[in-house]
């Protein structure tokens, strides 16, 4: 069903492109070998009741959450390269654990592809609605999309700008205020420098984090009492 919707969107995107020049083509295709393999792997893992699930792309995947938080039932559900449409399509694998908390950090690969911020924010809302349907009591933490460091950014990520990231984060903040059990977690205070860029010393490429930097991130989540 979900796949159907996405397929429809893709076809619609393509059609509208040929109908009118001014409309934009949205590349919402999330299926590639890494996604399929990783999802198949997740599905083989045992159910972990009351889990704390970290959901996202490579930034989540690279985090050694379990090693940093051995005292908590943590699941890493990051898939490198994933976009908001991809997360939307794999929520079943997350909700089956009946998680206590879900931390979501997604959107930077959407920006890389040129998906408009409005569509990404719409997807955040769809993701939340979808989770709510099966898990009304689960707290959903929307982690702010991390800023990039433009001076270190690789060519392939140059489409990602901090001004777009700000739009996403403001969008999340706005609707999380209205929603029960949805909280916006602003990570900028610890990961951004005074100019609002990703701190140079914790990123190898202007977008990803050094794996030791996740310790600081987790410490911050504890400090603000969301973990």
């Amino acid at each position, binding site marked *: 069903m979900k796949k159907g919707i996405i397929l429809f969107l893709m076809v619609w995107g393509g059609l509208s492109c040929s109908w009118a020049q001014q409309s934009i083509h949205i590349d919402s295709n999330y299926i590639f070998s890494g996604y399929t393999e990783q999802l*198949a*792997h997740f599905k*083989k*893992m*045992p159910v*972990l009741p009351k889990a704390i699930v970290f959901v996202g792309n490579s930034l989540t995947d690279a985090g*050694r959450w*379990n*090693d*940093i938080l*051995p*005292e908590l*039932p*943590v*699941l890493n559900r990051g898939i490198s390269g994933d976009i908001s449409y991809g997360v939307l399509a794999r929520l079943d694998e997350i909700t089956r654990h009946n998680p206590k908390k879900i931390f979501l950090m997604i959107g930077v690969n959407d920006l890389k592809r040129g998906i408009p911020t409005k569509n990404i924010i719409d997807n955040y809302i769809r993701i939340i609605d979808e989770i709510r349907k099966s898990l009304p009591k689960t707290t959903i933490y929307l982690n702010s999309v991390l800023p990039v460091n433009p001076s270190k950014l690789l060519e392939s990520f140059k489409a990602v700008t901090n001004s777009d990231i700000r739009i996403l984060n403001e969008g999340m903040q706005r609707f999380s205020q209205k929603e029960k059990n949805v909280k916006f977690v602003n990570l900028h205070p610890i990961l951004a420098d005074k100019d609002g860029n990703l701190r140079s010393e914790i990123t190898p490429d202007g977008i990803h984090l*050094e*794996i*030791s930097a*996740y*310790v600081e991130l987790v410490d911050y989540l504890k400090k603000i009492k969301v973990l």
Partner: protein
Amino acid sequence: MKKFAMIVSGIWFSIHLCAQTNDKSQDSTYSNWYYLSREKLYQELKYVKYDVIFFGNSITERGPWQELVGRKYKVGNRGIGGDNTFGMKARIADVVGTKPKKIFLMMGINDVGRGLSTDWTLKNYEEIIRIIQEQSPKTKIYIQSILPMNEEVLKYDYLKGKEDMIRTLNRGIEELVRQYHLTYVNVKEWLADGYILKKEYTLDGIHVNTDAYIRWVQYLKEHKYL
């Protein structure tokens, strides 16, 4: 112009080829950006308490141990992809600093890849065991056999034709197990047919897939190691 480019690339190619066939059997170095980035994380987590630690190279690092073992134990993963026994010897003391109840070791395949002398590897093995026993005498040490490869699907030339080295190392490891009264975990019993890693468990002939990790942890549980 084109000819010049071809000559340059030709020279580059032969240098590259030369470097690849270079004998690395005397190369005991272990530090590289990957090692350092992991080690930096592990240093930050030096005081975190775990009940069980999995220690080794990429085969350990890629294992979803926490998810498969479940909540009975606090599990720490201390694998570093590409690490050899020299790199492991350098970091083992800090790994057992918080005195875990159990440690599972799997080490040596990257030594084999370089063609390091099996005597060196076994010597490092022994020193690693001694360091653990000294730092944390109550930690129960589980020595896991080096996994065999599957030459048919093996993607790395530097590992081809080295089954004998793995056999020699595993014999030496078993000897150390007897000498130091440790527990030998013969994972290959389930994951391999004789000395061939089962095809359904590997994509590249050396690393193992999700099904293999599931079987592996099942083995540890059935033998009451976990």
